[in-house]
């Protein structure tokens, strides 16, 4: 009798444990993985906000067409934050609570990403490939650092490398920097300060306000200071105007740019004044021979999109989508947020079909890449002129 009771009880317990299945992961079903992207669709960076997700979807559709990741198709939901940090947080909460997304991907802008840190901690949800090159993204002293996987080489690191490059070219170089007086510029200045200390020099610093269209004062100061190498920490319009203004003053230093100035519109807009402009970039060009870039061009042409969209920012969306897909692939069939974080931490020099210099993460490393390649404008086309520089 007793033995029968024990057997019955064991069976009951086994049945109970069998029924109590694992709690389902939000945003993951047998056929779909839902990811959340928060872009600037109607704010100051709306042009990028349209180009980036388009590039990402090119790759997601390609992967979905091949059967998805472990049988699951990727679906991306996009919210608009208008470059407002508080709206970014509201959008993130909406994506987690209403849409039940699995993870965040490619939120654009430094301050919106910084504002998300408490939310990432609260929901223990990872943010893969934030669309900002600010070095603060991989800063481990900040809240919620372990949920953010930054792919790009930070602005600080880029500025540092550019100063080194100037001194390699000319031992007597006098370096100046024109920077945007905001979070982007602050990170550039951090790198400049490190380079100043290393080389025992003083870099001439000229600030401008976001949205400025007149740089005559800054260029004149650099001319007066006798700078031979000028680092431009701008986006698209700023390097064009700076180089044209300098040419009008018959001032011809070597212009160097931080990665946001990589856009091919700079080459088009600056014309002959932009000849020789050298930019640091954290990945291969979209028109390079890397396998990933070839695939991008092929998928883009097949998509029938307006050719004007093709370019650095569209390709950036594509590249970061490769990072996310690789992470999801490595996380395995039983997908959870914790497993994705562990899988991402396993990246070691992963180059994404030759596009990246080698992305590495670890339990206490969220920096992604630490190198850049230098790209020069030669006769109106962008050409890579260096190996990966650390």
């Amino acid at each position, binding site marked *: 009798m007793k033995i029968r009771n024990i057997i019955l009880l064991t069976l009951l317990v086994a049945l109970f444990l069998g029924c109590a299945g694992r709690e389902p992961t939000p945003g993951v079903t047998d056929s779909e993985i839902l990811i959340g992207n928060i872009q600037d669709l109607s704010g100051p960076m709306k042009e990028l906000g349209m180009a980036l997700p388009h590039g990402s979807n090119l790759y997601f559709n390609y992967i979905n067409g091949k059967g998805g990741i472990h049988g699951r198709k990727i679906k991306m939901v996009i919210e608009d934050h208008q470059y407002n940090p508080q709206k970014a947080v509201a959008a993130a909460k909406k994506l987690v609570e209403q849409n039940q997304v699995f993870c965040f991907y490619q939120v654009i802008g430094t301050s919106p990403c910084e504002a998300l840190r408490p939310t990432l901690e609260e929901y223990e949800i990872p943010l893969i490939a934030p669309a900002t090159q600010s070095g603060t993204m991989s800063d481990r002293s900040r809240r919620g650092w372990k949920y953010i996987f930054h792919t790009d080489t930070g602005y600080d690191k880029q500025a540092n490398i550019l100063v080194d490059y100037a001194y390699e070219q000319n031992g007597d170089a006098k370096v100046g920097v024109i920077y945007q007086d*905001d979070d982007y510029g602050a990170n550039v200045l951090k790198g400049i300060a490190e380079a100043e200390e290393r080389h025992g020099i003083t870099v001439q610093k000229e600030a401008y306000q976001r949205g400025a269209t007149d740089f005559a004062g800054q260029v004149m100061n650099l001319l007066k200071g006798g700078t031979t190498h000028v680092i431009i920490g701008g986006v698209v319009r700023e390097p064009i105007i700076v180089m044209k203004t300098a040419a009008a003053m018959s001032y011809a230093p070597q212009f160097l740019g931080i990665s946001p100035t990589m856009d091919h519109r700079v080459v088009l807009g600056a014309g002959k004044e932009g000849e020789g402009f050298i930019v640091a970039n954290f990945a291969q060009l979209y028109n390079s021979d890397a396998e990933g870039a070839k695939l991008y061009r092929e998928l883009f042409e097949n998509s029938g999109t307006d050719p004007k969209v093709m370019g650095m920012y569209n390709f950036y969306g594509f590249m970061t989508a490769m990072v996310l897909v690789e992470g999801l692939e490595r996380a395995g069939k039983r997908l959870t947020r914790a497993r994705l974080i562990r899988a991402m931490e396993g990246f070691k020099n992963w180059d994404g079909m030759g596009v990246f210099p080698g992305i590495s993460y670890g339990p206490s490393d969220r920096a992604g890449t630490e190198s850049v390649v230098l790209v020069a404008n030669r006769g109106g086309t962008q050409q890579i002129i260096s190996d990966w520089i650390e």
Partner: protein
Amino acid sequence: MKSRYADENLSWIAPLVLLVIAIPFLIRGVTFSYRYYLYVLNIAGIYTILAVGLDILSGYTGLISLGHAGFFAIGAYTSAVLVDQAGIPFGLSLIITPIITGFFGLVVGFPALRVSGMYLGLTTMGFGFIARRLIIALRAWTEGSAGLEVSNPVLFGFEFASDWANYFLIFTFVVAVVVVARRVMNSKIGRAFMAIRDSERAAEAAGVNLTRYKLLAFFMSAVLAGLAGVLFAHTMRFISTDHFDILLSIYFIIMILVGGVGSIYGAVLGSVFIVLLDFLLIPAFKDWMALFVAIEVADIQSLIFGLIMFLFIIFQPMGLYGVWLKMRIYWKLFPFNPKKRFT
């Protein structure tokens, strides 16, 4: 002797408090995504405090301000620095910071003694820019434009770490500010403010000290903006100069215009309406539209926002509070309404 407030109807306070307490429970009962809605309501609550202050200045006293984002930013950054770097308790910062911001209000208020109208608007707008530049320049404390992480509010040993807890903290202040502001506006001070708004010369002739009351209006308004800033910094837990731009100042002006200028309830209705519209209704409408039309450009959000402002100013110059007043009079007189009066 009869009290000054004996005639005032105070019966609305209790239902108002009950409603405010009930709202989060109702939302939690209805939807799983209550934290998202509470977050939006918390923003609305913080903006309400600021809008009440702005209404005291612009609605009651007639002094336009396009620089309230500046006071708001000073409040937020001052509290973040005082609490996280100087080690002052949050409770103390709730008192000190609004007073510090109030003094900035006095400084800005001085030009108001000489200039008015659009020129005052420009002066205050200039202050908004200066405040932002000042915050960026004081990098050692504010981390410049990179933004600043801020600690959670801690009051009497209790840490407000969730949207749920923050709601009760913020709305305690909202109710207190609304009650106090209404009382003050019904007092000698409020009447002096309105006299200045309607005619400075007449007010002066009636014995209103223009200098004193104009500065007082600026001080009170900045104190409330500072209080809103403290709550904003510690409940949002991250502040950045990106947030406190000129558009935010205009956003506040729109709130009091849509709510109804010159009424405390109007400021409350306006700020809640605009925040809900901006954060919930327009995005929901956009999502709904996307089911039928392929919307590539998200500018539709700004378009709808602008259209609503436009229609309000043309057809409802008294704002939402005006609509409420009309409805109240309509039902009081029903069914003996004079024809065409309420159309």
